[in-house]
């Protein structure tokens, strides 16, 4: 293993008979945002728990910030910030108390810890709520506080386990902005998520895990490009589907139909091919109700690799819709 921020070789974790993680390999470069995608129960959290030294692997090895997660667990813990799936916050503490406690846990001297706590509370827009008990915070505030606590010692590698699950879109965007800002100053981010859009928006590279195995890995654009060209989705208003298919087949490759009124045709040149499709249908006398250009999404990548849709994909595919 070289100088990657995170390097994993054949990492395994079994719970009795259940193999939650089945020998995965991955590498995350310094300064990268790595999105770890997968449905519930795929092995995302188990992997994060092993990489953050909260759980011993049952096989393989992993280094984080150059330190072995088993043999040098304490050095790993000094190098990482962790915000786990359920914001692990004591509802009886105030936000300020929590971040100051985190500073002490990270070995910061008292004055420095207090200074950083105050600065972070300001940064995540919680200064006004800093002396209120966490139990009264909203979900978004709790996530921001959790993130701030993970940053108090300026970690080299930040683990975020489903940081926006359950948050409203505005809070989600706030967290995204913060993650980008952290990455801009060189922090490596390992982010697990069920949200395709989140991985697409943030990650330089994604790993897709399913049933404990990594089924695809690479930059989101590359993974999607590997699936082929975008396709046009046509909803017919009038005319026979056979006629429409015949017309479209002259433009691009027909994809398997989804129902009796929809035609899917792959187009090599994307949006540039749409006028040709419209002309061909017009000449064939087919009336179209709606037309949309659909680019392959990470969900399509997931479907291609596993045969199933990813849970939590609220955004659907990446579509540019034109309605006739």
């Amino acid at each position, binding site marked *: 293993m070289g100088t990657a921020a995170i390097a994993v070789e054949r990492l395994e974790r079994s719970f009795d008979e259940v193999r939650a993680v089945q020998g995965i390999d991955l590498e995350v470069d310094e300064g990268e945002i790595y999105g770890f995608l997968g449905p519930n129960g795929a092995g995302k959290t188990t992997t994060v728990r092993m990489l953050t030294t909260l759980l011993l692997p049952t096989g393989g090895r992993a280094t984080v910030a150059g330190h072995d997660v088993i043999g040098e667990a304490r050095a790993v813990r000094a190098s990482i910030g962790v915000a786990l799936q359920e914001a692990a916050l004591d509802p009886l503490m105030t936000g300020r*108390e929590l971040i100051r406690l985190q500073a002490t846990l990270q070995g910061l001297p008292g004055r420095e810890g207090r200074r950083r706590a105050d600065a972070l509370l300001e940064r995540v827009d919680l200064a006004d709520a800093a002396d209120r008990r966490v139990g009264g915070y909203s979900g978004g505030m709790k996530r921001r506080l959790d993130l701030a*606590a993970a940053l108090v010692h300026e970690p080299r590698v930040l683990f975020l386990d489903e940081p926006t699950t359950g948050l409203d879109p505005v809070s989600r965007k706030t967290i995204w902005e913060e993650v980008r800002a952290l990455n801009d100053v060189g922090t490596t981010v390992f982010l697990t998520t069920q949200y395709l859009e989140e991985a697409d928006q943030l990650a330089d590279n994604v790993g897709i895990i399913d049933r404990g195995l990594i089924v695809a890995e690479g930059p989101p654009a590359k993974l999607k490009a590997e699936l082929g060209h975008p396709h046009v989705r046509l909803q017919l208003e009038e005319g026979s589907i056979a006629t429409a298919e015949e017309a479209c087949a002259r433009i691009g490759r027909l994809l398997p139909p989804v129902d009796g009124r929809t035609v899917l045709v792959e187009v090599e040149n994307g949006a540039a091919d749409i006028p040709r499709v419209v002309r061909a249908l017009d000449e064939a006398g087919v009336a179209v109700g709606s037309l949309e250009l659909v680019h392959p999404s990470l969900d399509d990548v997931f479907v291609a690799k596993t045969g199933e849709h990813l849970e939590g994909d609220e955004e659907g595919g990446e579509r540019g819709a034109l309605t006739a």
Partner: protein
Amino acid sequence: MSGLATNLRVVRALGLRSIRQTFRRPQLMAPILVFPTLLLAIQTGGAGSAVDLPGFPPVQSFLQFMLAGAMMQALMLAGNSGGIALAVDLEMGFVDRLFAAPIARYTIVLGRLAGTAALGLLSALWFFAIGIAFGAEIEGGIAGAAIAVLLVTATAMAVGGIGSAIALRTGTASVVQGLFPLVLVVLFLSSAFFPVDLMIEPARTIAEYNPFSFIAEGVREPIVAGIDARDTAEALLAIAAIVALGMGLSARALRHRLRVG
């Protein structure tokens, strides 16, 4: 900053959190002081003439005799509460925050115990205040009271160690809470509430060997008779045994938790 100094800072910070947590959650604080105070009031009011029984040790009053019992009950509840609070931390994932920090893992348990010890200290002072307010004399004077307070504080910590071990092993607050009746059984089978010489078998034999009897006598003696080095030493030995048991079980439970997640 040296490793030891850092660890002490962590223990202090976690101990302060533990104390704040107790005061901010009245349902944790109330039983520690309220139940033993009520029991003390009921027992001294209802069974005060027990001191006239043949074989009852010479004491100024039943209240003076019972102060040690009330303190023992309070410290047991404080230890149990400490275990419950740690289990709640485990349930809500707060302990993961601590496990993911570059600290010695024993500081997590010691931090919790520091808070439990503080509650033990508070309960000892509370019952001394009640005793003195209602006329109980402290035969050992300030030094004797200090010894009793020290023993109560240390025992609260020791009992908290066992509560913590159970919390770490089970990770479930309801299991630790379910041990509450057992706490009372252990106490009733000791000399905390009644002299061993007046018990009948098999309770008498059990009480004679129950480490909590040695601690109860160590706490009681400075109150009812004066400082007795032997009683104090026996109490300290009993506390040491409970500490060793609690720490050993906690260390094992910590290792187990890391293995199973």
